[in-house]
């Protein structure tokens, strides 16, 4: 197996083209290249790693060559991933274009849409944002009201979106809009692709409780989107969106964009070093037990998918729910272990002094974004239990 010619070829290529700094673990969540028309790189290595992988088509290795991929089989893609993992390589590119829109376009897109949109994603040249939630459509997403009226060869958009991650830094947005106000709620929604530099768009970052402003409000005032950029059929948007949210939930559950998890037991050992408190250690042990079993569950889902078995009902919701609960618990335990120290810092000190508190605050969003915990419970009750 380890002498497979493709594996050897991958290994040799990576040896030359994966820069050393890109073989170090990420130091923070999403600490990799996002790409885009105006890309920001943390260092030259990050830029070089993206370009090298893009040239090879290995950013989206299983996509067809014509669409910017390398046309690898699943076995070959697995080998590539194993070799990347073996040297601890960071992902060359992260973002919703690659993880969510790409798979959806491959399934529902026209040839023209695939040709226009997939290669720039696979080369990291266009960065995508997601436009789902609206100020009055949160958990009840299907009540969304952003309207798209077909006028000639374009849809004219009016309304607004909210909680769109990095919309201010993105180039395009995939969004849900109402194209039919007479159809039943779920059937009047369409899935549209919109250039965020189009006239009539205003993007406004929202400052969050942890001091970051990654999420944006986006306002649409008579914005024109090509009719050719409606994905699937008019009215099919909800079906496509649900599919895409499954990809999103699996991603949040598996957390492939995050730094590698701490060594099992690290928190417990550090807590013991700070204050030998049996109650705290008991809570940490419970957390470690849950973390192991969630990790095994993610591995089990992957093994079942690779074996071509049908996904157990609502498993994406199960791992999203349990992952969110666990993440918050974990960050809160870190606060407990450090006490007031984690909640205060010298005036004017660098952001790294605030990391523990910030991580804790940020973790709250995993129970809200991508469908709240309560929505996941609704989905499980309906789809897995038929209630």
């Amino acid at each position: 197996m380890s002498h497979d010619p493709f594996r050897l070829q991958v290994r040799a290529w990576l040896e030359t083209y994966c820069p050393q700094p890109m073989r170090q673990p990420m130091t923070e969540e999403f600490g990799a290249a996002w790409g885009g028309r105006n890309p920001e790189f943390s260092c030259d290595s990050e830029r070089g790693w993206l370009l090298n992988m893009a040239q090879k088509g290995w950013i989206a290795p299983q996509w067809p060559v014509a669409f910017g991929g390398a046309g690898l089989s699943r076995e070959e893609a697995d080998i590539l991933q194993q070799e990347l993992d073996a040297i601890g390589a960071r992902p060359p590119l992260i973002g919703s274009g690659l993880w969510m829109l790409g798979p959806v376009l491959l399934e529902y897109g026209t040839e023209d849409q695939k040709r226009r949109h997939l290669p720039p994603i696979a080369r990291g040249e266009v960065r995508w944002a997601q436009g789902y939630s609206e100020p009055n459509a949160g958990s009840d997403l299907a009540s969304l009201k952003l309207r798209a009226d077909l006028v000639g060869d374009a849809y004219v958009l009016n309304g607004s979106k909210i909680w769109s991650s990095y919309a201010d830094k993105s180039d395009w947005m995939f969004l849900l809009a109402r194209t039919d106000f007479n159809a039943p709620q779920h059937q009047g929604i369409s899935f549209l692709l919109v250039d965020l530099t189009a006239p009539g768009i205003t993007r406004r970052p929202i400052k969050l409780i942890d001091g970051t402003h990654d999420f944006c409000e986006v306002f649409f005032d008579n914005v024109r989107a090509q009719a050719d950029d409606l994905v699937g059929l008019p009215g099919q948007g909800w079906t496509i969106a649900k599919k895409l949210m499954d990809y999103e939930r699996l991603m949040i559950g598996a957390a492939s964009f995050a730094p590698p998890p701490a060594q099992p037991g690290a928190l417990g050992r550090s807590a013991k070093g700070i204050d030998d408190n049996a109650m705290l250690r008991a809570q940490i042990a419970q957390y470690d037990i849950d973390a192991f079993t969630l990790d095994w569950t993610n591995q089990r889902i992957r093994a079942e998918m690779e074996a071509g078995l049908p996904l157990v009902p609502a498993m994406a919701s199960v791992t999203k729910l349990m992952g969110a609960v666990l993440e918050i618990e974990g960050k809160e335990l870190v606060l407990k272990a450090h006490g007031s120290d984690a909640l205060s810092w010298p005036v004017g000190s660098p952001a790294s002094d605030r990391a523990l508190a910030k991580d804790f605050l940020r973790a709250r969003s995993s129970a809200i974004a991508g469908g709240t915990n309560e929505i996941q419970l609704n989905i499980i009750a309906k789809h897995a239990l038929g209630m």
Partner: protein
Amino acid sequence: MALKMRCLSDDETLVQQAAFDFCKAFPPSAFARPLRDGSKVSIAGFWCDFSSLGFAGVRLDPSKGGTGLGHVAAGQIAEALGRQAIPSPFIATTGIACDLLMGKPPTLYDHHLRAINDGNMRLALAFDERGRHAHNVIETQAHCHGDSWVLSGQKRVAMQLGDATHLLVSALLDGLPADTGKIGIFLIPVDQPGVILSRRENLDGSLGADISLDGATVSQDALISSDDGAALSGLLDVGRAYLCAELLGLAEACFIQTVSFLKQREQFGAKLSSFQALQHRCAQLYADLQLARSAVLAALLALESQAPDTPLIVSVAKAKLGKVTKQIAHEAMQLHGGISMTDAFDLHFFTKRIWVCDAALGDDTYHSRRVAELLGY
């Protein structure tokens, strides 16, 4: 942690299906209840049919009449037994005794393995000496006299004594203290002179016993294993992993019955399943059960691949299963309401056995503590 999760193989899926189908004929109304009430059924009779289908010898080599599968396949059978709350000697026999005997030079214990495969040897564990599991408490002593060993001490068999034909007994060899001495494991007949049983009834209706070993004299070949305690420790982990599989089956049975009850029971002019407060509780249990299922598979795979982290993985699983399944037992009773408190309704055979299996070989708190110790805190 170098554990690789995988799906069930075709053979394992076949065993799973066969075991589920077989056990379906033995729901509590047909087995656990009459057994508790002392009427008509016997474990020996059940075990005979069970073994004739190859379940008792699932792990034995085909040359000894077995099926030649591993711990993962055996775990599916334990789960199937749990699904019908069947008390049986499976864990001590197919799990622990097979592990002990199969690890020895081939042919040495063929007669025992054949007897297990044929259903004629049913084991119970005489390891514990305290009411609450404490793996390192062994005061029972075995003194060597010529070609025999003389056993003296007190043991507690927590479960699965039922119709056991033999006991596995742990003892300090030659009376040395535990930290320096060798720990032996003996396989002896239940009716061995000097073995005095005081029968105990377990919460779930199965039978246990207090055992006095009062100078029981056994031959040299009754001593199957002796070392510093590693063998005993490994066998306990086998038992725990199988208990996890059985707990999973018990909890799934409770959960499935509860969801179907909610879909059929009407109050306030609506099916109970239409109330979101109840839907969310069931959905949470479903998520917990999925994680528990992964933990069971991880524990069985760890045993099968002899992973170096097996003690940690097994303790994580036993802690998780103990906590989740007790929670499901409580919720199943609460969501059923008053009927769950009646003896006539079978749900209590499942919930009671959950408490018995949780306590056996260490409950969730015992194993949470072991997880922390193994992780170094």
